[in-house]
């Protein structure tokens, strides 16, 4: 989709998406209410999916929008609204001594930058032979057992993990395990008295 872009245009797009990503991430750090932070986080996800498309992995960008910006963030917004006691004036935003803790991510970022810029240039060189991540080559690389090991076993494990996570979340978030039985007996009593 972005294959036809020339060098200057795609650099401009990368700068735009990168600035949007960084600004929205800073918005998560500085916002007062969790719902504002959620909107900022959705903006981060969308900008990162744009960068995926620029990096010739359109399938990953689509999955990012579908799963992250769609499903996961919808779940977060839903839980914040259900609990409805997410107001941050009850919980202090940043305590004074926490500003000292900000040194840790700052030092980590400086270390990252120092390490990345110290790498030899050919390690971080864009390879012209890298494949474009469309659906067909990704599916072939994941599931074709004839050409290599494939990832089908990992794929099945992820499916089982998601199933277990959903069952565990339902069991954790239910008010108590025998709630439906109580409701059932109440209903039966009401039915009998009627």
């Amino acid at each position, binding site marked *: 989709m972005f294959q036809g872009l020339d060098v200057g245009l795609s650099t401009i797009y990368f700068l735009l998406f990168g600035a949007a990503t960084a600004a929205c991430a800073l918005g998560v750090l500085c916002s007062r209410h969790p719902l504002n932070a959620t909107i900022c986080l959705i903006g*981060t996800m969308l900008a990162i999916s744009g960068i995926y498309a*620029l*990096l010739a992995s359109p399938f990953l960008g689509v999955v990012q929008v579908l799963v992250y910006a769609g499903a996961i963030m919808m779940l977060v917004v839903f839980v914040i609204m259900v609990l409805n006691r997410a107001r941050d004036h*009850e*919980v202090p935003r940043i305590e004074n001594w926490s500003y000292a803790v900000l040194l840790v991510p700052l030092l980590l970022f400086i270390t990252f930058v120092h390490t990345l810029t110290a790498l030899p240039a050919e390690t*971080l*060189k864009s*390879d012209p032979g890298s494949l474009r991540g469309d659906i067909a080559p990704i599916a072939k690389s994941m599931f074709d057992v004839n050409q290599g090991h494939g990832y089908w076993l990992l794929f099945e494990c992820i499916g089982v993990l998601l199933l277990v*996570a959903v069952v565990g979340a339902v069991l954790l978030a239910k008010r108590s395990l025998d709630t439906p039985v109580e409701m059932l007996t109440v209903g039966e009593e009401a039915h009998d008295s009627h």
Partner: protein
Amino acid sequence: MTPIEPLHVQLLAALIFSIGLAVVLTRRNIFFVLMGIELMLNAVNLSFVGFSRTFSGEMSLTGQITPLFTIAIAAAEACVGLAMVICITRVKDTVDSDAFSGMRE
């Protein structure tokens, strides 16, 4: 094919990871902690895709398949994490992460 420098992608990923770590370490609201973890996972995914551009052939696809699994793991993590937040908030009646320090009760 892609004129974007992999170094710039890695720098952006490092910036997002640092911001996510700052959110996790400094904010006291438990929702912000969860969102910081999501930011850090996103940064690692971006780093994977950025590095996949420096390989050729099948290796470049491997760097794009790993984020798919990471996204699925993040979905499971958000699911269980939010259920635990609901569960503990019912008992403690607050979203302050300092109140979540006890292992009993």
